[in-house]
């Protein structure tokens, strides 16, 4: 088995597993006592495995959402769509590879696809800025939104970013403006918008392409106003309390459904989507088809009004 990326919360399990593997390499035939211990250890490991993966806390899910082998936007595009045509550039500055934008067909449905794009290795991650877009990325996404609106193509988006890039050039080129304009534009497109949270949903950088008529979250994806580390830093002046922050922020898929932000959760295999991506792709495809079936019959202006009404309902206050 190839060495896989080990997440913090599964480290105790992995350590026991390697201990067991070592013991099993020894010749224990003459030592019944040790043999008993080995089988007890195996049982303990099985128990720990279930305990580790069946009841993941929010911080563990954040780690899964960032797992380097987790399926990414590109994987969904390849697995779900045919006749994919990618578009490039914002016609003003450049092409931001941290955003995927293009056309694709799901079954017989022609769509516009948007997504944050992380890399698969160091080289592609550098090109894609680890999935953190610059303003030109959002401006490319806006071009795609206008095309969708103009040609009546529903939009599907895949969220997977730690956040919009907080760099000097991003600020100089109007990161805030690009996000704000994207929000305004997306609120008014006269086509269905179906959003999938597939990994990280980092704040405004995710939201810029991250709301619509349906919000469907993968079980171990998160969507949050702030990263748990930054939240911890603000609250405790120490990023080390991220686990507590992750619990407070109610950022996991199930919590977001419970508080009425997300509509639906797509379940993942035990341990995360990277363990077995095929059924996840299939479930995402099925959820997309269901959402589109419900939405495509609505007139453009109806969709816009309902989308606005959805947004207007979000917020808790006394009066």
């Amino acid at each position: 088995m190839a060495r896989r990326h080990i997440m913090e919360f599964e480290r105790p399990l992995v350590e026991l597993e390697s201990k067991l593997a070592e013991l099993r390499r020894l010749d224990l035939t003459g030592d019944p006592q040790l043999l008993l211990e080995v089988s007890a250890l195996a049982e303990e490991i099985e128990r720990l495995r279930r305990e580790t993966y069946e009841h993941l806390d929010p911080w563990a899910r954040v780690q899964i959402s960032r797992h380097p082998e987790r399926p990414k936007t590109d994987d969904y595009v390849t697995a779900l769509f045919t006749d994919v045509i990618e578009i490039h550039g914002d016609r003003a500055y450049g092409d931001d590879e941290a955003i995927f934008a293009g056309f694709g067909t799901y079954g017989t449905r022609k769509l516009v696809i948007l997504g944050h794009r992380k890399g698969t290795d160091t080289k592609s991650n550098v090109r894609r800025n680890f999935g953190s877009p610059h303003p030109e990325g959002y401006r490319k996404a806006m071009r795609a939104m206008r095309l969708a609106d103009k040609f009546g193509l529903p939009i599907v988006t895949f969220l997977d970013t730690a956040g919009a890039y907080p760099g000097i050039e991003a600020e100089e080129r109007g990161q805030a403006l690009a996000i704000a304009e994207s929000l305004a534009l997306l609120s008014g497109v006269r086509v269905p918008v179906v959003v999938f949270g597939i990994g990280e949903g980092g704040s405004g950088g995710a939201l810029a392409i991250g709301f619509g008529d349906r919000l469907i979250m993968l079980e171990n994806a998160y969507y949050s106003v702030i990263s748990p580390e930054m939240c911890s830093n603000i609250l405790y002046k120490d990023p080390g309390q991220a686990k507590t922050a992750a619990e407070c922020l109610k950022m996991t898929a199930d919590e977001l459904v419970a508080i009425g932000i997300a509509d639906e959760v797509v379940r993942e295999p035990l341990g995360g989507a990277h363990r077995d991506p095929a059924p996840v792709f299939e479930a995402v495809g099925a959820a997309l088809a269901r959402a589109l079936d419900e939405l495509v019959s609505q007139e453009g202006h109806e969709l816009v009004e309902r989308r606005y009404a959805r947004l207007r309902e979000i917020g808790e206050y006394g009066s």
Partner: protein
Amino acid sequence: MSIADWFSARERRRYVRAGDVSVPADVADGVWVKCDGCGKTLYEGELVEQLRVCRHCGHHLAMTAPQRIESLADEGSFEETEKGLTPVDPLSFAAAKPYTESLASAREKSGLEEAVVTGRARIGGIPVMLAVMDFRFIGASMGSVVGEKIARLFEQATAARLPVIIVTASGGARMQEGMFSLMQMAKTAAAAKRHSDAGLAYVSVLTNPTYGGVTASFAVLADVLIAEPGAMIGFAGPRLVEQTIRQKLPKGFQTAEFMLEHGMVDEVVPRAELREHLVTLLGYLRARQDRAS
């Protein structure tokens, strides 16, 4: 300035009672404050007369929402709207300091119910919907109430066909309200868009500091963007940017003047000229309406 001058200036001032917006406790007359710009000590009473602009260095100090409203609205014209909207603790957020405690101390400190005051007003006779954010209230962060008040402001302005003026200041989203807070960005941006689509004017005045989710939503969607001199404006805070890129930031990074140079705001207007400036600007933005009436 002699004491007599000071009193006559006080009388000349357009003195508006900003609805029932209460006067904040920490800026009572008679307090000495230190200018954040030059460090010189200033008498609060006199400073307020000068719209909280330092007479030594011209630095624009923070204004409270009631002070700002008083400085912009015609006398007696401000009627506060949606005062009854009050924050709740939807996530029972209790890390470090419970959110309910932060709210209570913000209320106490500012005398306000939330980080934005909204209402109807007239500026130079022109009826407008006006919103002013107040940094003393949890860094004027945007939670459900701020988002809702801004959305209602745009909706009421759309219904009454009025221009919107928003004076912003904010550290960003109110993290204690989690995703409820983030979604206010989309809600306010959508409301601003509908107001704009109705052909109505929106001017925002970005004051120190305006950051994060407020900058990246309604604050920059105005027809004309005005910034106050020296105001820090951006998406990501300077410390985060510095940590991310691991370099020193260029001089003046994210100041109003920097934003102007990079084409991100239309103009930098000194506070003393702001009111007259808004009146002139609204004259242009209301030209079609004025012709029709």
